[in-house]
């Protein structure tokens, strides 16, 4: 009779195999083939694709760029999100209105918003330069120099995903116990001491969760880069996922891009595990 349980598990297993296991195994198989636009097919060429990955400086540069972009954007999101959450945490006027307002960027489609931001940053037509000019700061070549383009992408990322951080941190703040705050008030702690000694330690587990979730998401950045800069100028804003996209779907080097994807996957798993461990050690009290 216990064999019946497999019958009930079947739908879930089928879906799991279809959407995760099969594509993953297939990607591994493809990464050992020379499948490209001239010779489609699953031949076997050993580890030559992986050897090529290690020599591909453009890939490693894009990976470095991605790490800088995701770490800095997530940190900015965390700081701004925390500040906003603290601002609307206590009773203030129109609190409900602000809470909804802060969530708007997250609810919009990334592609659409990237198009709008591209217009804002347009060098001769966009309002960003108009405003800078009006206050006498001169124009900035937002999307045509490397550094400025990188910062533009960073701004849009922060704008788009701070609300998510805000939401997670606000949920955490709302669930905090009241007693530590009462005790801090009686002990005579001011707002800064209260934040450092009460709020921040209590929020540590939520902080770690929020940062990890956002790092995973931020590493997949694609739409913003694609729409705003297409990785340019040159390769100044090209991230890993965008580079893999170019190799796979523009050049149709399927075998090679599969090898890139797997390398990327392994690096992400290792680095995020390390980051999570380091954050936990830094922020969480060690028991025992």
């Amino acid at each position, binding site marked *: 009779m216990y064999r019946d349980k497999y019958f009930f598990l079947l739908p879930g297993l089928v879906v799991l195999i279809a959407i995760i296991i099969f594509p993953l195994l297939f990607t591994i198989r493809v990464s050992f083939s020379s499948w490209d636009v001239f010779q489609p097919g699953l031949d076997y060429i050993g580890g030559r694709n992986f050897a090529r990955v290690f020599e591909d400086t453009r890939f490693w540069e894009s990976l470095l760029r991605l790490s800088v972009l995701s770490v800095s954007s997530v940190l900015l999101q965390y700081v701004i999100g925390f500040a906003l959450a603290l601002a609307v945490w206590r009773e203030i006027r129109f609190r409900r209105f602000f809470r909804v307002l802060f969530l708007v960027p997250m609810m919009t489609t990334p592609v659409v918003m990237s198009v709008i931001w591209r217009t804002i940053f347009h060098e001769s037509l966009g309002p960003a330069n108009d405003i800078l000019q009006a206050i006498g700061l001169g124009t900035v070549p937002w999307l045509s120099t490397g550094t400025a383009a990188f910062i533009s992408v960073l701004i849009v990322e922060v704008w788009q995903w701070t609300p998510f951080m805000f939401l997670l941190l606000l949920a955490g703040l709302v669930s905090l116990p009241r007693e530590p705050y009462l005790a801090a008030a*009686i002990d005579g*702690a001011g707002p800064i001491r209260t934040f450092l*000694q009460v709020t921040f330690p209590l929020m540590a587990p939520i902080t770690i969760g929020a940062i990890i979730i956002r790092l995973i998401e931020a590493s997949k950045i694609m739409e913003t880069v694609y729409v705003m800069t297409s990785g340019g100028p040159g390769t100044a804003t090209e991230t890993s996922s965008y580079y893999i996209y170019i190799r796979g779907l523009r050049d149709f080097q399927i075998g090679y891009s599969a090898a890139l994807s797997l390398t990327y996957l392994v690096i992400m798993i290792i680095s995020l595990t390390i980051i999570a461990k380091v954050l936990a050690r830094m922020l969480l009290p060690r028991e025992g």
Partner: protein
Amino acid sequence: MARIELRDVAHSYNGGKDYALKPLNMVWEDGRTYALLGPSGCGKTTMLNIISGLLKPSEGRLLFDGVDVTDSKAEGRNIAQVFQFPVIYSTMTVAQNLAFPLVCRGYPVNEIKQRVDSVAELLGLSELMQYPARRLTADQKQLVSMGRGLVREDVSAILLDEPLTVIDPQMKFELRRKLKQINREFGITMVFVTHDQTEAMTFAEEVVVMKDGEIMQRGAPQDLFERPGNTFVGYFIGSPPMNFLSAEVAEGKLSCPNTKFSVPADNLGGKGEIQIGFRPEFVELVDPEKANFATARIEKVDNLGVETIVTLTLPGNLTVRAKTTTRFHQDAGDVVGLSVSDDRIQLYSNGQRIGQANEMA
């Protein structure tokens, strides 16, 4: 140290629709130990938070030694408050935790060290000073919470809001003893909120019983036990609760149907519904022939180790409980006699105490 006075203080959480604390006047004398006792939601914590300044009363004034402090904030009042769940600063060591209130107030370093050391000594935390506070046990954490209050030598009063709830029973006794010792040594006023009556009775010199935002009775534990001011206090204090039987006045005598109870009562006519009340502890179980109060059938015998609680049914289906510490050999179904001395029987009219049976003659 201060004499704390509440003048017409009342509080409502919803702008006057319901009162969590009904208007009351009250004085907490300097250096005494008080217990606030009452069921959940009776306004105990509200009263405490008003005194400590975490809550501003919607009506009335609060005076410390005659100085109006109604509008000053918690940190300005020199009140220490200990909460139901121990609050520690988890990133700090025990010593840093104890020093925190002084650091916040900008005390000089050597004075902080001296005060922290003496408080740690008093609470028996000296060994643990450099230990991270988060790794302490619950009762040690609660000691640290208390220590943060004691470390300020000018503290006016210590308010304890059910501080022993999370503590093991054996430790409870120890902590209570420590609190009393602190009270004796430093003469700090202590207000202890609890819903555990034994805790209240053993800790405090004076017990205040509250219900629905009102003070029901205030007095020494002995008074509350022997002469409850109303039927609520009779029910609430004591385990099992006081026995209440309805009585009637006829021909100048107050008597209780189905019992031998009868006292002269010339001045009780027209006093409304009259009840007599007596503690289970004051019921003596005797031979049916020798009984001065009634004969009854034993319904149930609960042996609690040291004491035995006997549930009895009187004629007319009245239930009375007796508590006895002597060895009890009878069983359910047996018939026994009940004796209650007249000076142990309280009289109530419409729920309020009007006297004692032996004073009626």
